[in-house]
């Protein structure tokens, strides 16, 4: 009996493999009040469209819930949920407010067929405090175009009302919390649930369900709500592709309201890549018609270099591209560019090639374009000028050009390169509004003054100061972590450091050998730690695999955001070896093994789905030798992170984005120093795995 849940999982996995029948109806489900695909409170067998990213909110009685969900692949999806209960002290004295964060995973084992329903197996709150812990199997079948019928079986919370027995044995208590509650999965009382979804019109949907969640915690234990009925029903209104509203009668006693913001990272809000059209390629005269134009004698002219560099820089300035330097012979030109604005490496390369066609004398046949990041060459894209001319108006010119282009290691700066004296040293600054989240629905807004001083290629002095304008954060309860408080004093840093010196660093980036990149950063690395951070990365331009090593010596900073260290008097040496792997289709994996800030030793594994347009959604987990009890109620460090590029949302030509990392709980174990400019992400855009997915933009 002990292995039964595993048998069930094995059966479900096998049935997935067998279900090769084509899908009958595209099973795109709607979201429920928990932000997961489903009915009202119950889940369903369906999924969202691949890559759908949604933000859902629910208000019902004293409960507020916010959920982020992501359809990781066609079958797999996950959610991160934040919930707050008001009036928590109704029956039991204590805090008036309680909050919880939880994570879900769902996997669709069967896609809907002509006779077969869509079947999903799911884990709810599988690593948290366990307030929502439940497992389920749900099946959904479309009957015609308008009606969907769902039935399922739930365990845990979803098995708390109308149970039919415990097919896989009793449900043990889980301790400690925060670790995957695998011993509980599919154990204890199981209870059926069911529901219907009827599409009244294109915009309106009716939903009704029989719920198997008894709300024991909210009704019985805490007296927050009165769960008078297992029947929930309500209406949903789809305003447009991105917005859905719902109003429901819940538990026979409450009215619930939901709002879902539904985003498709694959489709730009603007409908396509915005920005001005490129200048057409300038074609050279035919060699037979004008052989003199191809004479390479111009290279001996002493002023040719500065004039060419200036002309090129002038053309590229319109696209936010700076010319670091230019080196040429009669037949080849190498230009090193710094792309400040265009979000796609391929487009920056295309714009540069077009500009070169206008500037370079006809004898120059080979264009070598080296994108430079933090002063170091990331790769070298070599384009033959005749291919550029010949393919400009050819059908499928993107694929044809890619076949003829080579991407190789950037190599050293040519000895005869002509740089721009105005480029170094250079001071840039900005003052921008900023938003910092400490947790879902909590954070502060403020102003960030940033400045960068580019001393020479690869030598960068930079820093930022942040000051709060408004915040709804508070000091909260002091950390009781038995470890050094390398992260759990975050609220103290937020509250007492205003304004705060976030960063003040001197960084040196280098290329010690082909395919090898290096970084050395010294100074105030982040708001909690300062010191020295060194990193080396090996990544051939066309390799899916990259290997890296990092070593840091850091001191913990004072909470006041100033320069001192006497408050903690803590220093530590941390270091990691890392492997990065691009699995294709935008899935990146990373494993880091080493010593963390609190002196603990362990490993971090992370998986991100990266979109060509800059969207990024990922999850990570770190397990170290810190015990779950010492870490805190969430057991070990884990969380999700996402980045939404401004270019995708607003159409603005920018490489900036809005990024958030969320954790179910913060502990001091598994913490890494947060240093800017880590190498892998800096250069990946210009390697083949970064250039190829949206290579078509080379002609944009």
């Amino acid at each position, binding site marked *: 009996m002990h292995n039964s849940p595993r048998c069930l999982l094995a059966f479900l996995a096998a049935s997935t493999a067998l279900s090769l029948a084509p899908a009958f109806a595209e099973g795109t489900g709607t979201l429920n009040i928990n932000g997961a695909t489903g009915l009202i409170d119950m889940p369903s067998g369906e999924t969202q469209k691949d890559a759908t990213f949604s933000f859902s909110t629910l208000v019902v009685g004293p409960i507020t819930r916010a959920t982020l969900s992501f359809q990781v692949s066609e079958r797999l999806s996950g959610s991160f949920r934040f919930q707050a209960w008001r009036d928590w002290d109704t029956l039991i004295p204590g805090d008036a407010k309680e909050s919880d964060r939880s994570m879900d995973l769902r996997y669709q084992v069967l896609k809907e067929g002509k006779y077969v329903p869509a079947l999903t197996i799911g884990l709810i709150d599988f690593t948290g405090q366990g307030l929502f812990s439940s497992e389920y199997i749900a099946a959904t079948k479309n009957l015609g175009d308008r009606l969907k019928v769902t039935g399922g079986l739930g365990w845990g919370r979803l098995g708390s009302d109308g149970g039919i027995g415990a097919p896989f044995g009793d449900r043990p208590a889980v301790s400690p919390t925060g670790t995957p509650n695998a011993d509980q999965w599919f154990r204890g009382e199981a209870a059926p649930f069911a529901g219907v979804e009827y599409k009244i019109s294109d915009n309106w949907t009716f939903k009704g369900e029989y719920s198997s969640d008894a709300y024991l915690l909210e009704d019985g234990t805490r007296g927050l709500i009165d769960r008078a009925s297992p029947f929930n029903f309500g209406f949903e209104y789809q305003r447009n592709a991105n917005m859905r509203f719902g109003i429901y009668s819940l538990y026979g006693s409450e009215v619930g309201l939901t709002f879902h913001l539904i985003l498709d990272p694959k489709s730009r809000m603007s409908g396509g890549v*915005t920005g001005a059209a490129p200048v057409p390629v300038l074609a050279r005269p035919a060699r037979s018609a004008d052989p003199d134009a191809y004479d390479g004698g111009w290279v001996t002219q002493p002023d040719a270099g500065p004039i060419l560099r200036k002309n090129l820089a002038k053309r590229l300035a319109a696209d936010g591209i700076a010319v670091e330097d230019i080196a040429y012979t009669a037949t080849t030109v190498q230009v090193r560019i710094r792309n400040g604005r265009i979000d796609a490496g391929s487009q920056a390369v295309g714009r540069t090639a077009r500009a070169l066609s206008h500037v370079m004398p006809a004898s120059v046949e080979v264009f070598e374009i080296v994108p430079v990041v933090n002063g170091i060459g990331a790769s070298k894209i070599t384009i033959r000028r005749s291919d550029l001319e010949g393919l400009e108006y050819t059908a*499928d010119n993107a694929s044809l050009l890619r076949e003829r282009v080579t991407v190789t290691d950037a190599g050293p700066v040519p000895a005869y390169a002509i740089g721009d004296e105005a480029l170094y040293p250079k001071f840039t600054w900005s003052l921008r509004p900023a938003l910092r989240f400490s947790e879902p629905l909590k954070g502060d807004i403020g102003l960030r003054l940033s400045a960068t001083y580019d001393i020479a290629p690869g030598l960068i002095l930079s820093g930022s100061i942040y000051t709060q304008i408004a915040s709804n954060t508070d000091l909260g309860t002091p950390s009781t972590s038995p470890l050094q408080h390398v992260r759990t004093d975050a609220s103290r840093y937020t509250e007492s450091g205003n304004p705060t010196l976030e960063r003040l660093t001197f960084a040196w980036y280098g290329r010690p050998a082909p395919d090898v990149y290096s970084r050395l950063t010294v100074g105030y690395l982040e708001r909690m730690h300062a010191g020295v951070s060194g990193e080396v990365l090996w990544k051939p331009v066309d390799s899916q695999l990259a290997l890296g090593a990092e070593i840091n010596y850091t001191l913990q900073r004072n909470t006041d955001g100033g320069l001192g260290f006497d408050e903690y008097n803590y220093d530590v040496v941390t270091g990691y070896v890392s492997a990065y792997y691009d699995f294709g289709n935008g899935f990146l994996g990373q494993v880091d093994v080493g010593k963390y800030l609190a002196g603990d030793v362990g490993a971090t594994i992370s998986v991100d789905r990266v979109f060509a347009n800059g969207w990024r959604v990922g999850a990570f987990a770190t397990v170290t030798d810190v015990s779950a009890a010492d870490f805190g109620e969430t057991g070990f460090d884990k969380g999700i992170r996402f980045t939404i590029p401004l270019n995708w949302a607003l159409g603005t030509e920018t490489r900036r984005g809005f990024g958030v990392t969320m954790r179910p709980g913060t502990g001091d174990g598994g913490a890494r120093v947060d240093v800017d400019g880590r190498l892998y992400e800096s250069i990946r855009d210009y390697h083949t795995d970064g250039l190829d997915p949206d290579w078509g933009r080379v002609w944009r």
Partner: protein
Amino acid sequence: MKLQACLASAAIGLALLAGCGNDTGSTNPVASAVGQMAKASLAKGKGDKAATSAATAPTSRQDLAAFGKPILRVRSERLGQDGFLTIADAKANVVTWTAQGQATFSLRDGILIQTRGLAADLMSAEAPSLEQLKSGASYPRVYFFLGQDDRGTRRTYACVASVVGREKITVLDRTHTVTHVSERCSRPNSQVTNDFWIEGKTIRKSRQWASSRISYVEFEQVID
């Protein structure tokens, strides 16, 4: 909740405000949004005099002829545009027309093969020749776009061109006698019909499909 709502609205407000500074990492979002609108206006703004006058006033043929260069009128219901374009580039039989360099349309012998600067651009196309259109040929037509997540994508249609007949059309106060050719293209669940009004070797007028979002664009060769 009130504070949270305040925070959220303040955040949105601030997000809309641009920062300041001297780094060129991005364009100002607000200015850019306004810019997009301005850019979308194909023939407005400073620069080319022909285009400027064309967009701002009902234009007479004489006014346009005075500029002494070829002019193409482009109309798109979906883009909400009606403007006059001048030549930005001509290579062999491909002419690229532009308004202020913000948007371009490339036509091979008058047949649309590329657009740029319209967001949902036609990136390239395998299109028929003028001879194929006139002779009522059958052929495949392939449109290339940047699709989901900016990945290259294509749509292949099976097309048949057929001569509708001789017609008289008026292009900015001038009557032309033309041959109307209709090109019907189909693929599963999708149909596209392009119409061409051909005068000798010139496509005097056409209504051509560019992409799902742009839909059809009308061209008139006003001044040769």
